């Protein structure tokens, strides 16, 4: 685990950069002192990527430009280094029990080789993290968590681990590449004997890949563009990267930064922890009712159940700007009279639509599709309209 002092320093640095988010300066010096690298950091720098700290890691934000990288993934295939993500292995006969207690989705429905999107509610009505749960076997599960929450999640799960389920944090030994886009299968197929198109969405195979044993090949991703995520032991990471780029040359495979990952997920209306969901937002309010299963007991169930029965007072909705302007995290949402009705949690110019889009919490009365809302952008109130998610057809 990350030692506490270091993680506090990292948190401070993250706060510093977030609170100075409008600055044009790149935080080079602090970066070098505190940031962790992934196995691909030198490759990114060699490719001329714009690097920045993200969740304590020195990560590539973009290579050639957000729009170009975004279209590359929507129309062809691109590779994201998401090795900063955290991975925990839970083993033994009580592993499922523990997962069922701390997550909101029903992991008992998983078959071997299947994964599910899930949520870890806290005991105050909020969300500890959103995550993926992979079932490798009845006695082995893999949890994939957000980089910024690795330590918090570990401690949270441990605090509920009354039956001493053996847990291993393999985050620092595991590289993760997301190969996303309609040409991902084509680009990767020559590297494995597994028939990639036979892996259904949210299923995975564990197999030799690019000459390396025991790679998890998972038909998941957070872009809505299709493709795979590969969990790779660090020692094989660079070799796998190089083979992917050689194999995908015919598809013009390209590296993609985290900035385009954000615009891609936002076009799909996918939540980003820290932006759209956090320790104080409820899964039901966040539109995560579909992964909140009352067929079982779990931490935080009563909060979700109450909101579900009584109706949420606020709801996370998608919206498109009608007036010209770009919504951003924390901008106020008001009604036609200027009265506060909510807050923007994510916003960008959608490269696919060429329109400004956003996610935000609004009071229940304004949450219906086509409701007119206004976003306070500096001193202006700009018209927007509540829109069904996803913003684009995947």
């Amino acid at each position, binding site marked *: 685990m990350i030692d506490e002092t270091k993680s506090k320093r990292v948190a401070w640095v993250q706060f510093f950069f977030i609170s100075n988010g409008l600055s*044009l300066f790149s935080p080079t010096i602090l970066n070098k002192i505190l940031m962790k690298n992934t196995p691909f950091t030198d490759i990114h720098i060699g490719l001329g990527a714009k690097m920045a700290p993200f969740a304590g890691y020195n990560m590539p*934000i973009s290579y050639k430009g*957000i729009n170009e990288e975004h279209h590359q993934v929507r129309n062809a295939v691109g590779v994201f280094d998401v090795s900063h993500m955290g991975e925990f292995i839970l083993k033994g006969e009580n592993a499922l029990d523990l997962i069922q207690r701390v997550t909101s989705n029903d992991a008992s429905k998983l078959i071997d080789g299947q994964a599910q999107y899930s949520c870890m509610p806290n005991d105050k009505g909020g969300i500890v993290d959103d995550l993926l749960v992979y079932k490798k076997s009845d006695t082995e599960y893999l949890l994939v968590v957000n980089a910024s929450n690795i330590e918090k999640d570990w401690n949270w799960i441990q605090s509920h681990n009354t039956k001493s389920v053996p847990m291993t944090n393999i985050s620092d030994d595991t590289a993760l590449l997301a190969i996303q886009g309609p040409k991902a299968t084509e680009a990767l197929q020559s590297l494995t004997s597994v028939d990639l198109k036979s892996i259904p969405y949210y299923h995975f195979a564990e197999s030799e890949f690019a000459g390396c044993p025991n790679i998890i090949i998972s038909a998941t991703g957070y872009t809505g563009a299709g493709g795979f995520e590969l969990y790779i032991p660090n020692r094989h990471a660079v070799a796998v990267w190089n083979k992917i780029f050689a194999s995908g040359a015919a598809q013009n495979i390209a590296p993609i930064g985290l*900035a385009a990952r954000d615009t891609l997920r936002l076009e799909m209306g996918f939540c980003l922890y820290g932006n759209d969901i956090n320790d104080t937002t409820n899964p039901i309010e966040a539109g995560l009712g579909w992964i909140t299963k009352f067929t079982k007991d779990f931490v935080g169930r009563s909060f979700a159940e109450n909101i579900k029965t009584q109706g949420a007072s606020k709801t996370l909705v998608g919206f498109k700007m009608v007036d010209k*302007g770009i919504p951003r995290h924390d901008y106020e949402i008001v009604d036609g009279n200027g009265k506060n009705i909510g807050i923007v949690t994510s916003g960008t110019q959608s490269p696919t639509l060429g329109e400004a889009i956003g996610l935000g919490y609004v009071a229940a009365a304004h949450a219906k599709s086509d409701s007119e809302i206004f976003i306070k952008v*500096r001193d202006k109130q700009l018209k927007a309209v509540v829109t069904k998610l996803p913003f684009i057809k995947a």
Partner: protein
Amino acid sequence: MKFPAGLKYTKEHEWIKVDGAQATIGITDFAQKELGDIVFIDIDTLGKEVHAGSVFGTIEAVKTVSDLYMPITGTILEMNDTLEAEPESVNGDPYGSGWLVICTVKDPSELEGLMSADEYKAMVGH
């Protein structure tokens, strides 16, 4: 990265080119690269006098928004209307077709406080 010699620069990454009693203002090559794909320029100070160091507008990139600061005190006479349809000109040609506004020069002595191309280049580490 380009830093044309005839221009003056601010620490907030604007450039200014003086031509008699008027000046043209834009953002630097370094700034456009840092911002990434620019999608919208919002300037609502047309016809107004804006003080040196005050905000005359904002520039929106896909990922972020940044304020635009006046290098000198002056009245905004004109804004670059072509940027409404082609904001990407600021990325492609920051010192040319991507210019932002034309303003009056109220007090030419304010120009002395700005950076030369070499000084600016040193500041951004190039």
